[in-house]
């Protein structure tokens, strides 16, 4: 079994960079995208095992991203963890296919735990 691939889509490059360092240190392959649209391209190209998704982003927001990925037969089964702010809690809960939710600023261990649970489930 090879390394699991995680795609993070967030419009904050520095945050993506931090998470990249963390996840690579934890033994994952990491791909970062800074907006929904290029995130979608990356998803199509790299077929990640898990997506970490921000909600408010330029070009394509998180909601649209989820709606689009759920109609793509190749990608619709990829688990998604939403990284966002507490205001949108129940909105996020309502979205189908969102495996979990983590609030910004997040707890690293919590994030790693959620990723682990998600990937093991698959």
């Amino acid at each position, binding site marked *: 079994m090879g390394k699991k691939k995680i795609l993070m889509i967030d419009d904050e490059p520095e*945050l993506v960079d931090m998470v990249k360092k963390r996840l690579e240190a934890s033994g994952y392959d990491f791909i970062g995208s800074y907006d929904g649209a290029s995130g979608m391209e990356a998803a199509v190209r790299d077929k990640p095992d898990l997506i970490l998704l921000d909600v408010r982003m330029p070009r394509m927001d998180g909601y649209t991203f989820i709606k689009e990925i759920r109609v793509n037969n190749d990608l619709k089964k990829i688990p998604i963890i939403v990284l966002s702010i507490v205001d949108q809690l129940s909105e996020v809960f309502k979205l189908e296919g969102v495996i979990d939710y983590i609030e*910004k*600023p997040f707890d*690293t261990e919590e994030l790693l*735990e959620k990723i682990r649970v998600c990937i093991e489930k698959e």
Partner: protein
Amino acid sequence: MGDNKIRVLIVGEAAGAEKFLGEFKDCPFTKVIGVITKGPEDGSAKRLRGSGVSLFSKLESVPETARTDSVLVLDDEDIDLKRLSQIPKPAIIGKTGAGLLLQMKRECNKAQERLKEAKDELEIQAWGLKKTNEGVKLLYKELEEKNRRLKELDRLKSDFLSAVSHELRTPLSVTKEGISLILDEIPGKINDKQKSILLTAKNNIDRLARMINNLLDISKIESGKTQLKKEVVDIVGIARQVVSFFEPKASKKGVEINAFFDKKRIELYIDADKITQVFTNLMGNALKFTEKGKIDLIVSEGLKEVECVVSDTGIGISEEDIAKIFDKFQQVGKNYSPGEKGTGLGLSIAKEIVEMHKGSIEAESRQNNGTRFRFVLPKFSWNDVIKDYINLGIMNSSHNDKAFSVIKVSAQRSGDAGKRGIDKKEDAACAAEMLKALSAKLRSSKDKAVRDGNEFFVILNDCARQDALKVIDRIKQGLEAGDCGVYCPKGIEYRTELATYPHDAKTSGELMKILTGGKEQ
């Protein structure tokens, strides 16, 4: 006024007639239509005599069109009153009458003068009013301008709050993650002193993040900006989500979370986000102050309300402190808890939210013996929800100048089926199927189908009458074709009523009245 004047014919000697003629010239209520004189030996008398026409025959010959209302006779003694009275129509007034008439005329003139004075004064006042009005208009303009600026400021404040909410959290995330990376020695080893300093920094970043969230919440609630987005949702589902959110944290701490739910589903008409927040705040609090033992979350349905309890086996709160536990910036646990620091706002936010839902919240505790928070939320009637939806629809439609329609669908057993009696179980299943069938006929997520007993309401936002009629057709066709499925017995009659804003009525009460056929709701 000219035509309403009393028409007077003056009869008498020339000099007197002349005098009265002068007096009545500018009288506002009499009009002298002629003078008949009888002497002395002057021109006019000669004219009378010369023509051989007597005073009376002259009077008698006054044509109908020149009819007088009164004949003013100046010389009482000389007039044969008896003969005069035979002349049809005119009433006769003698010298006394004439005097009265004169008096009246003078009074009238005086009144007119006073009227004119009053009019002048009024004109002055009107001018003053006009000036005041101009001043008021100016003030109003100024106020409008100020109002506009206030709104602008308010918008700026909102933007600012939103910026704080979203933008501050991202740099916080980056900072926190950076510190975490170093703490976990991913870029390289650090010593214990460095570690301890970074740990303090990290804890405070967490605190800052919580503070931002809470400050935002409370400022939104206090400015009255927080409007509940109420929907009929399952509160047990909300509680479950919150429990699963807290479970990993609790198990890490060695604290057990037990959830007890009265029923699998308990529907309430609430703002799901906000109630999630109440549970989150209470659970977060419980976990924070509980080092060992358990946290219980109970949701149970009462007669009129639903009770939610979050209790823990933690350090508890002293009697003195519990009184102020819902006050802002009260951190009663501050003295005893060395760990995670709060913001002092979580419980006041919870209280505000519960009270916005017309519920209540209370806390009870014994020091070192755990704390128990209990809040109740009122149950709802579908009728209230429908009214709320209609009110909301009207509000949005009047705002956007659009129409808004509501359809009522009722089902009734007819013929033989009606005599068979009502099977409650069957009815409930049928009603559920019907609601499903109606929901399938909605145009978009903006529309809603709601059930109130055996009646169903379809709320169509931004929908004019003719479009609503199309929806009705679709509904009827579907139901008659058997959309309801196997649960609904044959022989059911469907009736629909339609009410459209603003076509049929402008208030929710009136719309309801149309839908329910005039019955008071």
